[in-house]
């Protein structure tokens, strides 16, 4: 699953640490999600989407192998 968290962060000019603090996870978790190494739970995905004020589908997108 690919995502646009890095792009959304750039729009708001916030760091991985800032986002991690806002949604109560570690910076490593944000890094892993951005790299596509870790797929977040529905709750975490919704928290991320809510923070950026967009729909979950605007950030996360399924890939053919998913």
């Amino acid at each position: 699953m690919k995502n646009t968290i890095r792009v959304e962060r750039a729009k708001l000019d916030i760091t991985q640490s800032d986002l991690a603090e806002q949604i109560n996870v570690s910076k490593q978790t944000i890094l892993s999600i951005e790299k596509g190494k870790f797929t977040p739970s529905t709750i975490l995905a919704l928290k991320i989407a809510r923070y950026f004020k967009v729909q979950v589908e605007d950030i996360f997108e399924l890939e053919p192998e998913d």
Partner: protein
Amino acid sequence: MKSLSIFPMSSYKNKVYGLVITLVALVALLAISHGPLPFIQASADEQFNLFFAVVTFGLYMIAWSKEKNDDERVQKIRAKAMQVGLGVMITSILAFIFCIDVLAIKKHEVTTLGGTELALMLDFGLGTYLTVFYIGLFFDPAWVYNDDTVMVNIKKNKQFFVVYFLAVVVLFVLIFLLHKK
């Protein structure tokens, strides 16, 4: 969301206490190898067995404590590491049992296990769990999050499994040679 935890993890503080207990017990083991500790009225062997159990308890405390920021990624890594640790522990105990059974049939003598041997098996499982957990936590690229079966994983990374298989063979040969002595 309300949830019930049957065997909850303890707080992060206990990880620090567990680390201190393990290190102190390891230093004590090192000291005992040069002679029994004067302030404990027991033989060197008895002291060794006692502190070996303390090391195991310390490792258990480290393993069953939360991280500072125990989020869902940490929990997922922990679940996978526990799966690996438990798997390694069960297979190693099974191998140990079969070795004992084969030797018992060949030599017609029953081997009994003491507390230290049992603690050693626990340490092996706990050590594997902690190693896999911290590799997953701090060396993320080394961790593969997949739920594939054994055969699919072997097909994906044949080289690793050849090395893994050879390591297991070497371990068994070493155990056999040590037992022969």
